[in-house]
């Protein structure tokens, strides 16, 4: 893999210095400020969140603050809204990642061919990913889905259909998924396109000479080569979409059964002012994400390995 060969670049050796005068810690000392900074901005907040998650803490009720034990965690797991938000998060993440991976793969395969105006088409296709997420959600809510002046119903009207469906109310989850797929397909496409363009041409030529069909070339050469790129796209996409807040907040305001975990945490923190419970939910999300990122990928990659061997 190309990445490996670049992992250890040749570094100019410093002029020979008598080693013994520098103990190990002195050579590493210059890294210390960066390490401290990293700990301060990442690990301390995590420890603080952990501590708060074990506390009774409603910001508007300062007299009733203290240690709560596992109460917050019990509340999080017994709250039916929070449980359904976990399911929503899984449904949302899985469907967005899978659909945008499939669409992104198709687009990447098309863009891998040479044609006039390829650069222009590529730029246009990337555009949705560059839109600020909350702006994208607003575009979908108002410009496209709105039943009164939205473009979808405008097109239906223009084509001569009388039906003017209320898109978000009738299919809230699909509406959120669709807007996210629109944003994330370009991301998947970019990663897969990079994979396609790093593919060596010789095996394909050899396969063609041996009489392989284009589907066979895709199935036995291109697809295995793309495997790690698909994994990477799936993993990065999952990490970001698990956290998605903008689309749910803007399009449905968490109503109609679309509230996901980040939205519930927002609601617990900003509406309920329950800092303890929100922290507990946050800790659970982190634990869940790390767990999924570790195990899911290991499972997926081992499956692929067995298949391609």
């Amino acid at each position, binding site marked *: *893999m190309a*990445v490996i060969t670049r992992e250890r670049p040749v570094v100019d050796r410093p002029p020979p210095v008598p080693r013994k005068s520098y103990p190990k810690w002195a050579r590493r000392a210059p890294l210390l400020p960066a390490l401290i900074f990293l700990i301060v*901005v*990442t690990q301390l*907040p*995590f420890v*603080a*969140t952990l501590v708060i998650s074990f506390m009774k803490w*409603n*910001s*508007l*009720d*300062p*007299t009733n603050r203290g240690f709560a034990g596992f109460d917050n965690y019990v509340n999080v797991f017994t709250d039916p*809204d929070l449980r359904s938000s976990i399911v929503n998060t899984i449904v949302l993440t899985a469907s967005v990642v899978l659909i945008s991976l499939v669409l992104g793969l198709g687009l990447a395969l098309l863009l891998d061919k040479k044609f006039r105006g390829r650069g222009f088409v590529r730029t246009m296709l990337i555009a949705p990913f560059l839109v600020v997420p909350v702006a994208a959600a607003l575009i979908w*809510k108002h410009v496209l*889905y*709105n*039943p*009164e*002046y939205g473009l979808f119903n405008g097109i239906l009207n223009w084509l001569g259909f009388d039906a*003017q469906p*209320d898109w*978000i*109310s*009738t299919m*809230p989850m699909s509406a959120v998924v669709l807007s996210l797929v629109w944003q994330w397909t370009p991301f998947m496409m970019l990663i897969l396109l990079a994979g396609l363009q790093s593919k060596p041409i010789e095996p394909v030529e050899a396969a063609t000479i041996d009489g392989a069909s284009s589907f066979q070339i895709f199935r036995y050469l291109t697809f295995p080569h793309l495997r*790690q790129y698909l994994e990477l796209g799936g993993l*990065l996409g999952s*990490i970001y979409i698990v*956290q998605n807040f903008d689309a749910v907040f803007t*399009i*449905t*305001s*968490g*109503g*109609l*059964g679309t*509230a996901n975990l*980040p939205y519930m945490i927002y*609601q*617990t*923190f*900003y*509406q*309920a*002012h*329950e800092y303890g419970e*929100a*922290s507990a939910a*946050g800790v659970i*999300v*982190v634990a869940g*994400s*790390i767990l999924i*990122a*570790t195990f899911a*990928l*290991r499972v997926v*990659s081992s499956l692929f390995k067995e298949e391609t061997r």
Partner: protein
Amino acid sequence: MSSIRTPLLRTFGAATAVLLLASACSGAGGGGGGADSVNVLMVNNPQMQDLQKLTADNFTKDTGIKVNFTVLPENDVRDKISQDFSSQAGQYDVATISNYETPMYAKNGWLAPMDDFVAKDSAFDQADILEPIRQSLTAADGKVYAQPFYGESSFLMYRKDIFEAKGVTLPEKPTWQQVAEAAAKVATPEVRGICLRGQPGWGQVMAPLTTVVNTFGGTWFTKDWQAQVNAPEFKEATKFYVDLVRNYGEAGAPQAGFAECLNNMTQGKVAMWYDATVAAGLLEANDSPIKGKLGFTQAPVVKTDSSGWLYTWAFGIQKASKKQDAAWKFISWASGKGYEELVGKNLGWSKLPDGKRSSTYQRAEYKQSSGSFSAQAEAAIKGAKPLNPGVQERPAPGIQFVGIPEFTDLGTQVSQQISSAIAGATSVDDALNNGQGLAEKVAAKYKGQ
């Protein structure tokens, strides 16, 4: 292959953790400022942005007191205030709080009472402040803890031209049944009968709906903290509201909040709109396509005399502030009559931070710019009863909300159910039975007290 797998994973694992945690925590900035300065924390509404523009050239020039503004969106302001005020850190001397928070913050001991300042400052003229607004900023101990910057109630706005064309009339004080009949008569496929909020949120659908519940005789809680969310009156009111929106309301109602209804009304897609009085100024603005075509009535009623809500953004002083005198001077200026005149002359009379003083409604220039609705708006605010908005006694102040910290969460959770009912995804009965369970949990906390 496997050589990079593990480090890669670790990196992403760590990255996930970092990204998720970063959103969970936020720190506080530095305080300070000189002796002749006050730190003000404000919500970023347009009226506050005007205030920010006018302060240096007027207030600071006259008094020598420098004002440092921190301007944030509503949710962030609430969060920042509760952080700074609960620890009494004294970073901010003055903060904008609404009539929802004022009594609670005062009870927590976060605010400085203003009675002494008011008594010494005759130019401020406390008696000129509209009574319901003053009442809503007074805590249980009878002291005033905040001074209003602007205030609003709710009323019914309708298209006079459409009503005339259809031969439909509305009385000065319509009942909800009359409004529903009118909606049925004026509704056409192109123009819906009425716009009512359906977007989830305690400040969205729950605000107008709670005023409807009040006037139908319902309440969230009785005086002795019995939850009443699935009581017959609450249910009747909610069914009425949901049916009205489903039959004659705007398209896309489950997502429609203030902004969406404003849009629908401005574009002529609806014939009536029940919402905040501040909306009238936007509908009658010079660039509005429906300017001059509007009629206004008081909030529709059923069992009560009036049913408009009451909301005000006001200035409170942090108890721990060491610059309370300077802070009062700023508040006295910003909430005073002189500031209204300053805005009128510099920025236009339609931009006046109105809805708080009787004298505002006597100004000739103001009447000229807001004549079509100012009398109705004034009557709506004057008719509001923040301590007794329904047919029964209440355990906490508030018209379109219940003045307890738990209400933002309770209201929002119930509102999501109501929004689903408006979408037809659940029934009103199920929505309110779920809501009752949530309300009972809240009530249990207070019952013993």
